[in-house]
């Protein structure tokens, strides 16, 4: 079967795992490169960005090692992020890093924004700092569920798989995180 790059993640993973198709791997890699790297980069302090790169590489190496164990019934995105989550957890539990409480997002606060419009950039930065402070206030599970939903674009089913909670519980976590953040941001503004 010729791989065109139009296939679903699961079909690409199947071609990569079963037939050893390197093109299928490259397509998968390109699809998840930014999301996966962003997952680590956003969760680590800015001083640990090199480690984000290492964890990113180790995730792909782990995917390669465990590709025979991939269950086609599961979604590939949930599987790869479970691997990423486990690696991140091990890295954090090693005691050499804390999960970032200053979640810096270069996607929204770019230096070019500030250069274009200093005033807008200033207020954007101020707002962003408030969001980061508010995020630090909610529980770890709520923060993770919120980030997976808002940043990574995961569905509640995928979040449930990743956080090992029920679907309803995942929806509840995201919803509670949103309302807590809303309250905290309103408090900060007032």
């Amino acid at each position: 079967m010729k791989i065109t790059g139009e296939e679903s993640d699961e079909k690409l993973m199947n071609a990569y795992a079963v037939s050893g198709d390197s093109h299928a791997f490259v397509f998968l890699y390109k699809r998840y490169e930014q999301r996966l790297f962003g997952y680590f980069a956003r969760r680590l302090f800015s001083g640990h960005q090199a480690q984000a790169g290492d964890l990113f590489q180790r995730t792909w190496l782990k995917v390669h090692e465990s590709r025979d164990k991939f269950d086609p019934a599961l979604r590939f995105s949930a599987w790869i992020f479970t691997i990423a989550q486990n690696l991140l957890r091990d890295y954090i539990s090693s005691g050499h890093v804390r999960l970032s409480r200053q979640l810096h997002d270069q996607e929204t606060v770019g230096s070019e924004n500030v250069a274009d419009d200093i005033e807008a950039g200033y207020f954007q930065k101020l707002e962003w700092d408030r969001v980061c402070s508010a995020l630090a206030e909610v529980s770890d599970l709520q923060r993770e569920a919120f980030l997976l939903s808002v940043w990574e674009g995961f569905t509640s089913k995928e979040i449930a798989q990743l956080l090992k909670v029920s679907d309803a519980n995942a929806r509840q976590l995201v919803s509670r995180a949103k309302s807590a953040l809303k309250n905290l941001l309103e408090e900060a503004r007032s």
Partner: protein
Amino acid sequence: MTEFIGPSEEVSRDLINAISGALKEEKKSRSLRLGRVLLLSTLTTLLLSCPLYFMFREELSLAWKLAMGFWWLCLTVGFYLYYLPQPRLEVPGYLSPWILAKILISMTVLTVIQILICPSFVFLETPFSWSPFESLTHLFMSWGGMQTCMFLCGLLMTVFGGVLSFLIVARTLKEGDSRNFTKVLAIAYLSQAPLLLVQILDGDLRPYVVFWIVGGLLGLAMALGLSRALTRLKFYFQN
């Protein structure tokens, strides 16, 4: 305007090449790979054992023959792990068979070379009088006789082996990764195991074997301490 969040081009290229290369290797014949492994390990053992054979000839004891057999085994396992289809990438925390193979092969070669140039093991009473380590041995002997010489021999061999192993795995070690480095050292010192056998079976060396072991243990502690300090230093500069 959004800024790109992603790995560097170099990281992406290396990762894609490493995994694509591993997939290509997997498609090659297993028996051909095994043949290459056996050929390489046998040739390397013969090359390393030749000087031993020609120096001892009919005096080549069972202990030396067993040692050669053990080194052949170490080299076979080493080359097998080296040629195993796998992504050849050095990433902190990823201790691949390829890295372990590099340690096993280089340490086996280093051990045999160390033995060949050590006057107490091979160069003593041989037709070859030149040895770069001869003056060092004389110095050790003048300090405290055979006991000191064996103690320092064990210490130097272990420290040297530990430092070499550290240099090979330095890029793959994580901060505070002492467990992985201990595993690396265990593999590294495996090739030195026949040395103990040779010393125990040799009547002249047997009374001093305990000094060699004590020196080796001290060397192991020093190698671990040194590697821990160097790893901390590496991460201090990295962050």
